[in-house]
């Protein structure tokens, strides 16, 4: 009962906060407290957003970004899981490579974006490579972490029954590590999305991010904000879907 009431009241506060911010925006623009070129009127943003979705102008850019994300995520997932399992199951590899992978993850890879552009050009390839390198690290690190936190007693038990390496992997390591691995996949997908949008904004010809920076340069702020709102909505939906998938893999007995 109190749990439900707490949940409801926190939802109410969230909603009120967002509405209050939007109202502040509305006041600031209609009363011309800020330059409308910097912050456009809300109703104009809404009008442009409706036009963008209605005419379908946004979809060609959405398709480019979605394609980049899908390919980047697939590459990162395959490589991240492979490296994660290899490093996670070998003591020497984990001693050597885990600190290395964690170290590189701490580096803001965006500083290498010019290199990605030089190697792969301004098109989708550079965004795919960039997004894949960002998504790789959380996937690999969570896979390593997931394997290392599998209870040693389960491994001893499997060993006492002389389980083959394959069965130890299939029946113990994989199911034991799965919840953490799925978290890594979610985080990888989100960081991949963020980095692809960022890459497009800094150096891109197509995609949602490139539209935002192009419209910003053209000082068409109401359309730019329409794109921003679209990207925010997309990020929220992506996060919601991925979290729902992740929850299905939570350890048995821990699902709230």
């Amino acid at each position: 009962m109190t749990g439900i009431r707490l949940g409801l009241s926190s939802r109410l506060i969230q909603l009120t906060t967002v509405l209050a911010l939007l109202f502040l925006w509305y006041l600031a623009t209609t009363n011309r407290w800020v330059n409308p070129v910097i912050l456009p009127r809300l109703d104009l943003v809404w009008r442009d957003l409706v036009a963008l979705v209605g005419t379908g102008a946004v979809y060609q850019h959405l398709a480019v970004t979605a394609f980049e994300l899908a390919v980047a995520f697939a590459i990162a997932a395959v490589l991240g899981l492979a490296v994660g399992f290899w490093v996670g199951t070998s003591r020497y590899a984990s001693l050597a490579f885990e600190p290395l992978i964690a170290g590189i993850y701490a580096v803001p890879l965006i500083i290498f974006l010019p290199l990605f552009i030089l190697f792969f050009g301004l098109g989708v390839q550079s965004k795919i490579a960039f997004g894949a390198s960002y998504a790789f690290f959380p996937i690999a690190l969570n896979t390593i972490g997931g394997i290392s936190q599998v209870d040693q007693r389960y491994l001893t038990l499997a060993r006492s029954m002389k389980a083959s390496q394959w069965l130890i992997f299939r029946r113990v390591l994989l199911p034991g590590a799965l919840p953490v691995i799925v978290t890594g996949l979610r985080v990888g997908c989100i960081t991949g999305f963020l980095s692809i949008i960022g890459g497009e904004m800094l150096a891109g010809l197509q995609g949602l991010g490139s539209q935002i920076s192009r419209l910003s340069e053209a000082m068409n702020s109401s359309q730019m904000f329409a794109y921003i709102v679209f990207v925010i909505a997309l990020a929220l939906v992506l996060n919601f879907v991925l979290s729902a998938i992740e929850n299905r893999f939570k350890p048995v007995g821990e699902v709230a």
Partner: protein
Amino acid sequence: MLMNPTVRKAPALADVVISVKNVSHAYAQGAVKTLNDVSLDIGRGEMVCLIGPSGCGKSTLLNIIGGLVAPSTGEVLVDGKAINGPSPKSIGFVFQENTLFPWSTIVENVVTALEFQGVPKAERLGRAQAALDNVGLADFRNSYPHQLSGGMKQRASLARALALETDVILMDEPFAALDEQTRTYLGEELSYLLADTKKTIVMVTHSLGEAVFLSDRVVVMTARPAAIKSIIEVDYPHPRDPDFMMSPHFSELRNEIYALLRDEIRQTVGGLVGRAAGRDRSKGDRPVRVVE
């Protein structure tokens, strides 16, 4: 005080199943000795408990018998064959709590164990269900471990070991995580279950009562490095019941084991006190019967 217990003509040593021969164990390049020249024969159908101060090395001895740990010197023979690693065809394990996979149902856990052991797929489910029926968990086969009580989980672990149909079952403090009432009840149940089977059981425990209640022989071990201090016979037929637990004979045996352990525990708990030089650990104060 206590007379030497009558030596039961146990089916025991007529037919030796497990033979531990001069086993010693040390780790950290021999710096830490855990087992000191242990020799022990265990007969077919015998129930033997290893008891000793905590951390003395009794679990190490169990793991050496099961092939999970290699001895530094000496060897273990099971059915006359030297143990060089896990032998799931002849030896099953029951560990402490929480070795059931939480992501699988109870029956899946048993099926997976059979898969590990190499049992053909067609036989697994039937054998798993039979084993669960045997321990009274038929209605819980599709439950997850977290839905069961601690006692039920340990019964499921026992069912998993029984399903492997090995002659030998090694148990490492299987009831240690349970409360005393549950553990006493499970002990009774175990005695009941094992009366029928011809399983040879070696169990590590730190409960004096449990050791006496379940064992045909109690192997009392010294503080680390563990050696056999004494072996106490418990001559009472299985299945054992609460009457046995309340008998004077039970108390005498329990007290006798405690008297043997007291010095060893003092060494473990009290640090340097009583660690006299040159003490011969291989001879107990009151050896009842040491099997060579």
